[in-house]
């Protein structure tokens, strides 16, 4: 804990000077200079591209809303249904925001579902519930952060590939969650937590879960697009070596990113506890795939270097809306899964087309 903190003051030059064998100073500075001008030119183009991508996804969403409105006008175009869709999107949405950061940096976090499961069961043990609202919230967040810290340390300082490190976390967090619960469903009896899930608690008709989701989205967008932290994330994902030469402490940046993803998982776990009124070791099943899929169809590059929070959130909304429309039309899960796959392909193809036209 202490060492990285002390490095914060003189991390950049230190890391460049010590950890890498002789790179001539001139080369280093000229590469980074070239890199930074290139980046400046690239930023504007990037902004344009992101807009085009988001636009095409908005088109998909609009098409879905039309389909929903035509097939089930009464049930689909209804305030309750809007609340329902947004609430269902909140938990996975918060996870996806964290995932977007990790993917933008060129990493991947396969452990998000397992961390949500572990945080949600740890926060709902009988012993934790004795501490009430604060105990549950605190435990969920700290367990999320703790798992993120382990992921981050293994990847940034242990030199493990993100895929493997987070896969290991997936397995062990699920195992620990099972051990804590013995496979039992832990029902929450703390009313102050449960009350946040029922309509009485809605603020101006907006469920608290949706407010949290909105806040996480806005903060995520600001951090990614308007802060040094965000630029560093993009730089690390674009070219880690260049970022390091430009004076970014890549390892610390990676650590922070997995911590951030863990934090998002902790928050999501708390939302899930409110939503389901319980903690279960099967929670968060396949969240990793849903979050990755949402980020990718949103326009975040799986290879890193480009990320969009707005796109990711739109991706989540597209998936939640599909599920909603299918359920309202009483279509079964086999059809739902086929359609989901088809829509992923369609969304990405449409994006590529619009992208090419936009560039031409």
């Amino acid at each position, binding site marked *: 804990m202490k060492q990285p903190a002390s490095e914060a003051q003189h991390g950049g030059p230190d890391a460049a000077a010590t950890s890498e064998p002789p790179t001539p100073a001139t080369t280093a500075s000229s590469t980074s200079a070239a890199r930074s001008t290139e980046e400046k030119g690239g930023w504007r183009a990037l902004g344009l591209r992101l807009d085009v991508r988001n636009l095409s996804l908005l088109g998909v969403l609009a098409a879905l809303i039309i389909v929903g409105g035509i097939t*089930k006008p009464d049930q689909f175009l209804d305030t309750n249904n809007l609340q329902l869709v947004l609430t269902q999107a909140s938990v996975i949405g918060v996870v996806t925001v964290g995932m977007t950061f990790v993917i933008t940096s060129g990493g991947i976090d396969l452990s998000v579902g397992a961390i949500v499961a572990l945080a949600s069961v740890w926060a709902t043990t009988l012993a934790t519930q004795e501490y009430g609202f604060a105990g549950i919230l605190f435990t969920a967040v700290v367990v999320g952060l703790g798992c993120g810290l382990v992921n981050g340390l293994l990847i940034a300082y242990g030199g493990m590939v993100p895929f493997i490190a987070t896969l290991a976390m997936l397995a062990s967090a699920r195992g620990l969650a099972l051990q804590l619960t013995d496979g039992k469903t832990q029902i929450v009896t703390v009313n102050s937590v449960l009350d946040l899930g029922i309509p009485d608690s809605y603020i101006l008709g907006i469920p608290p879960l949706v407010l949290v989701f909105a806040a996480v989205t806005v903060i995520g967008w600001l951090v990614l697009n308007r802060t040094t932290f965000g630029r560093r994330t993009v730089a690390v994902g674009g070219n880690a070596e260049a970022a390091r030469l430009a004076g970014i402490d890549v390892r610390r940046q990676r650590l922070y990113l997995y911590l951030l993803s863990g934090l998002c998982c902790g928050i999501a776990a708390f939302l899930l506890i409110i939503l389901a009124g319980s903690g*279960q070791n099967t929670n968060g099943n396949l969240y990793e795939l849903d979050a990755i899929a949402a980020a990718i169809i949103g326009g975040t590059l799986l290879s890193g270097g480009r990320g969009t929070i707005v796109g990711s959130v739109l991706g989540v909304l597209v998936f939640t809306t599909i599920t909603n429309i299918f359920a309202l039309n*009483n279509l079964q899960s086999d059809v739902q899964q086929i359609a989901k796959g088809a829509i992923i392909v369609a969304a990405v193809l449409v994006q590529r087309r619009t992208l090419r036209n936009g560039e031409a």
Partner: protein
Amino acid sequence: MPETSRRGLLFGTAAISAGAFLTACTSNEPDKKEPAANTQPAAADDKPGAPVTIGFAGPQADHGWLNAINENAKSRAAKYSEVTLDITEGSNDTAAQIGQVETLINKKVDVLVILPADGKALTQVGLKAMRAGIPVINLDRIFADPQAYRCWVGGDNYGMGVSAGNYIGEKLKDKPNAKVIELAGIDNLELTQQRTQGFDDALKNFPNIKKVARQAADFTVESGQAKMAQLLQAQPSFDALWNHDDDQGVGALRAIQQAGRDGFLMVGGAGAKAAMDAIKADNSVLKATVLYPPTMAASAIDLARALGQAKGVSGLAELEIPASLTCYSAVVDKENVDQYLPTGFS
């Protein structure tokens, strides 16, 4: 080394106290009490007979029902002084479970009770045990070859659907144009299809009832909440709901509460303690649950013991234990809930 900063110290202390708090929060023990597995008296021939060693191999107890299976087996075996239970660590991995059963065969246990993670995949090792002269009691998930077991004991998924359908039918038979919805379990499991088939077949007895919607959840609380919320939005009014599984039912009840809906009858499935408590309290839409009794594991121990002592089942004329035993899916409602409450699992 740099000198310790105040911030570092603060974070360090905070981290340590958070760690201490979290460690204290792992406990799930309410107050010590007996596991509510099986409190019925043992069968008629309670007297100790010849010693029997029973090997038991099951899947990983990763949800309530499977956990209850293990507890039922253990507590039943503990009732008999002459029975030794050799229970393996549960595994969902076919190869691992085959290895565990082979170990039990090598240990030369007298009788094997096997609840396979996957019935078809464990058929060969069942055959191997039978050929080695160790009779196998196949619990619930059936082997592909009847020669792989001496006796099969398990639940009746089709019967569960039938019981649920008939119970709902009786309650709604005088209501014209009654609407029913179904919250199914994992759709790619055969057992879910069987439950739905039984439910549909039973509802055919009541021409006034129509099933208007069905969605499949995946046995988890989270999915139960999500799918039920959608079903409620899709169906502004209906008269009854059958939910296949009480675990996902926790989520379904939460969704019903969140939507502020009532005025219909809900029937659960499997027989969890939480569901039975709710039925007894009679303060929610949940009025009944259809059993898929975990006590079948206790019965399997009884059958294994009888087999090991070369006895039949008391109360029947046969000299040998039966070749198959299908447990009845009883409906538990307010009338009989006290009788079944001890078998409810959490």
